[in-house]
């Protein structure tokens, strides 16, 4: 069988995938050369993940062909593709929670001695895979369920690398990673490239696309818009191709003046947090920035009563609040939205509208005497979904079937529909496309302008700097700096989040 491009290791011709009610991928022809990183970009729901899943044997194409190493390939399942030499990191985590890191990496191919698992070899091999990928910090024996989401994502990457495949598919591999891990991944990618491995790299972070890819393939509404060498493209060009119109990627500080303190944490300590104090004002957007394991998620969870505290108090509007369960927090007007949409935020198997209202009905919205009022619920959910541009055939669709970015929007709707005074958003723009990000920045600014208080945790430095009135940097469970006004610069934030605050050390 002949291919169109002799250098191509992987090619698709007229690939099409139809789901009930949606054409997810429409007649896409793509080629990937050996030793090349191909960027794949497009808006939420453009079909990127669908394409990756077709290439890795998860889905069978409705129409069209895949050629691998010059031969027509028909993968019946992910194992076929893996055996052929195509390895993938999915957008959503697929680790088995109660197994160890090592068992997850070597799942289905545990080293054996006789009939038994050779544990020593398993841990040894895992350790060497982890250190090859610059992840020496991860313990092969750690149970996956106990790891923060960023580390889980690193484990997924290590697992995909360990197959020594000829083609590597990365679907938003950095969505839960911070600076150092991303740098690590890039150096691994460069090394793989030199070894002649072909890589497809999906990301909404265009700066990453410019750093690692040689060519970029742009999708819109399931169709190919353009394929260009990376050096010939710039951000504006790609964005305009993705969204079909011009967008300036500006961050958005709205018009609001911070007022009195509404949420205050004093001396919070638990097994990770060390004497953390924190303030949030009405009409204010506070950014929290820190690397993996810095404790930003834990801080937010501790403030809503989702983590037991060893020490410390939380005050809401000046009064000490005993928040032992997230419900207590919601009742005092504080809502937390988790960064881990599959693991901690969404209810797969449930329609969009129920997902959006789950939190609100806990405090009596859309209910009467303990009975739900589905008609009101559905109307409100539909309005909110439309406001956030959730792309779906209807609000009755199972959230499981939404693209990652659209799931993220459902998470936001779920947090905001309750109308909370204090909103703690953990990575609200994770996996969201450029156009929709702008909408979310604007939404956050609007929340502050309406007199609400917003905490905005993000791994993306520019958006923290661009949106926040005040920034806390965190490192190893401590707050290392509080920056305001002109102090909020990239340089400052990075400096402080790599440093352990000496004063904090002394007081514990």
């Amino acid at each position, binding site marked *: 069988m002949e291919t169109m491009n002799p250098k191509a290791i992987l090619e698709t011709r007229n690939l099409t995938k139809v789901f009930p009610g949606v054409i997810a991928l429409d007649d896409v022809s793509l080629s990937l050369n050996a030793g090349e990183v191909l960027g794949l970009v497009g808006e939420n729901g453009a079909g990127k993940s669908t394409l990756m899943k077709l290439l890795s044997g998860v889905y069978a194409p409705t129409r069209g062909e895949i050629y691998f190493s010059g031969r027509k390939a028909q993968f019946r399942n992910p194992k076929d593709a893996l055996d052929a030499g195509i390895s993938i990191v999915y957008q959503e985590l697929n680790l088995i929670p109660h197994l160890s890191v090592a068992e997850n990496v070597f799942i289905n191919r545990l080293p054996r001695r006789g009939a038994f698992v050779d544990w020593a070899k398993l841990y040894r091999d895992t350790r060497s895979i982890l250190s090859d990928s610059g992840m020496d910090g991860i313990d092969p024996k750690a149970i996956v369920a106990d790891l923060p989401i960023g580390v889980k994502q690193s484990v997924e990457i290590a697992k995909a690398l360990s197959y020594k495949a000829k083609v590597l598919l990365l679907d938003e591999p950095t969505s839960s990673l911070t600076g150092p891990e991303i740098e690590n991944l890039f150096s691994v990618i460069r090394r793989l490239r030199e070894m002649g491995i072909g890589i497809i790299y999906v990301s909404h972070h265009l700066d990453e696309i410019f750093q690692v890819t040689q060519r970029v393939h742009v999708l819109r509404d399931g169709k190919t818009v353009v394929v260009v060498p990376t050096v010939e493209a710039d951000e504006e060009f790609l964005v305009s191709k993705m969204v079909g119109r011009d967008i300036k990627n500006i961050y958005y500080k709205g018009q609001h003046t911070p007022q009195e303190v509404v949420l205050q944490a004093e001396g919070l300590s638990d097994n990770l947090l060390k004497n953390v104090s924190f303030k949030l004002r009405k009409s204010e957007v506070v950014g929290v920035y820190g690397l993996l394991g810095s404790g930003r998620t834990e801080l937010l969870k501790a403030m809503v009563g989702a983590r037991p505290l060893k020490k410390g108090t939380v005050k809401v509007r000046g009064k000490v609040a005993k928040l032992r369960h*997230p419900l207590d927090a919601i009742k005092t007007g504080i809502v937390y939205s988790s960064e881990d949409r599959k693991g901690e935020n969404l209810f797969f198997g449930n329609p969009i509208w129920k997902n959006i209202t789950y939190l609100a009905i806990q405090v009596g919205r859309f*209910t009467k005497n303990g009975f*739900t009022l589905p008609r009101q619920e559905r109307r409100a959910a539909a309005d909110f979904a439309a406001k956030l541009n959730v792309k779906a055939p209807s609000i009755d669709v199972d959230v499981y079937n939404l693209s990652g970015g659209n799931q993220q929007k459902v998470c936001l709707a779920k947090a905001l529909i309750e109308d909370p005074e204090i909103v703690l958003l953990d990575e609200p723009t994770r996996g969201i496309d450029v156009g929709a990000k702008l909408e979310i920045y604007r939404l956050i600014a609007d929340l502050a302008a309406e007199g609400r208080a917003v905490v905005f945790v993000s791994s993306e430095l520019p958006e923290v700097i661009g949106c926040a009135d005040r920034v806390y940097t965190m490192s190893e469970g401590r707050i290392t700096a509080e920056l305001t006004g002109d102090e909020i610069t990239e340089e400052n934030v990075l400096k402080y989040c790599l440093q352990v605050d000496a004063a904090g050390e002394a007081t514990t």
Partner: protein
Amino acid sequence: MKLSKTLLSSSEFIVFLGLLAIGAFFAFMSPVFMTKFNLLNILLQSSIQGIIAIGMTFVILTAGIDLSVGSVVALSGVLMALMLHGGVPVWLVILINLVFGVAVGLFHGFSITKIGMAPFIVTLATMAMARGLTMVFSDGKTIFDFPPAFEFFGSGNIGPISVAIIIFLLYAFVAEMLLRSTVLGRNIYAVGSNIKAAALSGIRTRWVLYFVYVVSGISCAIAGLVLTGRLGAAMPTAATGYELDAIAAVIIGGASLMGGKGTIIGTIIGVLLIGVINNGMNLLNVPPFWQSFLKGAVIFLAVMIDSLKNKQSEV
């Protein structure tokens, strides 16, 4: 149009078609099957299973399991029999019996949420303990002779319909309303679908777990009342193996052991399906050993069809 599409693809509907098909088969094979008397008989026999399976549905919706139900039904019967013979008035016996059901549920809820034991293990232990206590209290003997006011709940009639059927249908209605239309019902599905997300959304997940096991306990107490009244006897070996029929009915009805999926209507169809098979095989004089095999095969088929369907839609 849209409604009919969702209806056609729902698990309940498919099982319902299966029920009709099997019913048609038996109607064809046996002239007795379609008689009003026989149909009411199926409903009557299904009512005790149905009450237990309703409780089981609540538990399975949260990804739990309750293996103790058969033994708890038997223990409830023996306890009531002994109290009646000890001269306790009927109304008080029934009240204490319900309290007993609640207590069993609280025990399960406590062990699972506070101690962190797995539902399978806790309820397996209770299954053995309850059966043991049943034997101890009854001395291994069947207890007879109850006041008519007590037996009314199992063998009485209101108009043409037996009280047991009325209790079953009322209970099913309340359960269906609770699951479908209340916040608590929604929360039960949420806990089964994603317990971490449920807690972060403000759902008191422990209370929910307590609640479902209490519902299962109460269901056993009600089933114990109806069964003992119907038989006019409390037998220490009563309701043996009921847990498996109840679980089978719930799963046939479209629920998933992984939690978050299932309905009372589905469960009832599942119970009726098992009831119809039992009844039909009796009418056709299928030998008992083959009955057990065939029932198992039908359960396997029903669950297989549902699994294949899910596999298709989720890839």
